[in-house]
């Protein structure tokens, strides 16, 4: 804490003694350099993961670490030989279908909580957020028993339903914050011109909120793709999702690090791409729309 604070004075320009523009630029670029170094240190484990995935097992398990090597795709082909594809397809299905369902449920609900609010709309909003705050571990046993009794264990549609309920509050809050950005004047002008509700949704609201809709969908996709707790307890061989493929690596014997890194890279890639695309809206999603 103090380190931060004492580091800061050098950073911003002290007002008492105005500095030359050149010195200010120098200070700025020094701090820019520091930010770059910190950024690279921070992302380094990911870089190391990707590098290791292109190594042979002997190079991956060497001490001291191997920095220079001939890259190989062997580990990736090994991972595909071990049948990673069904896990990827299951995750794709669970994430895409649950995201679609979330968007279909959350967008009208957010509309009824923002532009045309029902009575007690704050209570409803806080009900949604409270479901997100309840620890999933307390619901695991009944969910397991219900799913088992209706014969839906190890079924990808079970995961679709559960991921939908997991992401619904987040999507309602996020979509609401985007819908509130639709200027009232435009909506009212549309009504004066005799536009029906459907027309104003199609012609006015949707074009304005579609970037927000896309960001909401991407964030729901990320959470569904990465989910592990429900997946490990409710799926097995048929419906195992991407993180389940990694369970086998928890206590592997022998040389496996390069293969693990190849699998981890492959499984993380869809979410990395989704997150980089949605990064400007990420903070709004993570804070339920509370922070813009």
């Amino acid at each position, binding site marked *: 804490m103090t380190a*931060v604070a004492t580091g800061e004075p050098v950073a911003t320009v002290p007002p008492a003694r105005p500095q030359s523009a050149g010195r200010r630029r120098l200070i700025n670029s020094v701090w820019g350099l520091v930010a770059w170094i910190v950024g690279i240190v921070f992302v380094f*484990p*990911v870089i190391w993961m990707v590098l290791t995935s292109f190594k042979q097992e002997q190079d991956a398990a060497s001490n001291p670490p191997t920095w220079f090597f001939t890259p190989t795709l062997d580990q990736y082909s090994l991972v595909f030989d071990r049948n990673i594809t069904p896990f990827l397809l299951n995750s794709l299905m669970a994430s895409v279908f649950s995201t679609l369902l979330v968007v279909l449920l959350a967008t009208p609900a957010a509309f009824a909580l923002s532009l045309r609010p029902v009575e007690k709309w704050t209570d409803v909003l806080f009900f949604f957020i409270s479901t997100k705050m309840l620890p999933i571990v307390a619901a695991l046993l009944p969910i397991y028993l219900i799913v088992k009794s209706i014969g839906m264990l190890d079924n990808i549609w079970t995961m679709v339903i559960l991921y939908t309920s997991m992401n619904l509050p987040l999507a309602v809050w996020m979509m609401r914050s985007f819908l509130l950005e639709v200027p009232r004047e435009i909506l009212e002008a549309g009504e004066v011109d005799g536009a029906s509700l459907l027309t104003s949704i199609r012609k006015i609201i949707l074009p304005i909120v579609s970037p927000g809709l896309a960001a909401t969908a991407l964030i729901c996709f990320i959470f569904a793709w990465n989910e592990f707790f429900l997946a490990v307890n409710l799926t097995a061989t048929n419906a195992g999702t991407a993180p389940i493929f990694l369970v086998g690596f928890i206590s592997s014997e022998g040389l496996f690090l390069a293969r693990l890194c190849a699998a981890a890279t492959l*499984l993380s890639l869809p979410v990395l791409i989704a997150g980089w695309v949605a990064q400007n809206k990420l903070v709004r999603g993570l804070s339920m729309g509370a922070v813009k």
Partner: protein
Amino acid sequence: MTDVITRVNRRAKPQVPPVRRNSKERWARRAPLLPALIFAIIVTQVPFVITLVISTLQWNALRPGQRHFVGVENYGAVLTDARLRAALLNTVLLTAGAVIFSIILGLVLAILLDRKFIGRSVVRTMLITPFLVMPMAASLLWKHAIFNPAYGLINGLIGGQTDWISDYPKSAVIATLVWQWTPFMMLILLAGLQSQSEEVLEAARVDGANVWQIFRKMTIPHLRQYLELGALLGSIYLVNTFDAVFAITQGGPGTATTNLPYEIYLTTFRKFEYGEAAAAGVVVVILTIIVATFALRVISSLFRMEESR
């Protein structure tokens, strides 16, 4: 649960005056909301009711014939069980450790990113990447590629044969969680820093306030609610930590890193003590409600700011 929530947000009542409408119009307004609301109630509330019921039963799945009502006996067992008390303490330590360190680091990173420099957006992209890596993949990456005593990156760079996971199990789990959650804190705090009014800061500078005074007297108070929001949302997510414990330590050595989610998982699927697992689940819910009540207060204060804008 709902009780607490409604009491909290009484204060955040809408400023919109209630307009009397006929019932047909009211239902037309409610219609778009109902599918989501009904779905949420069925999928999230019904299991909790069942948890409450199971928590009053003596029920071991290995002895299905002996299921019977025992009242609050399971709660007594849960609250006096040394394993569960250890799990509770571990949950607090792991959650608090991860939240505190990721907030401090996140604040440093947010301050670094709150100025213009070449490639700022590239650095930001690099910094959020750990948050996006699949938690299961990140946990295994840290376990094998970084902490491994024989070929891990730490021992590879600094030498020695330290077995980081066996010697410092809690710190190993916390380090992994901090790496994953610092970007989350950084994004929230950066949004807070950037929402400071530039004119007010400029005015303070003109009045002769130095950088340290501005940071302490203006930035920190302004950031307070963002710090609170980060801490509370972080706690709510991190209390549920399962992937990292499952992958890195399996709760061990002994019970050194067994947190409540992992302990309940063991009680349910290894010991098949359904009644006790359900009672432990209810205890976790009560603890979460306490944290969540504060979280909702912070969110509703941000919410009121937005309404009054």
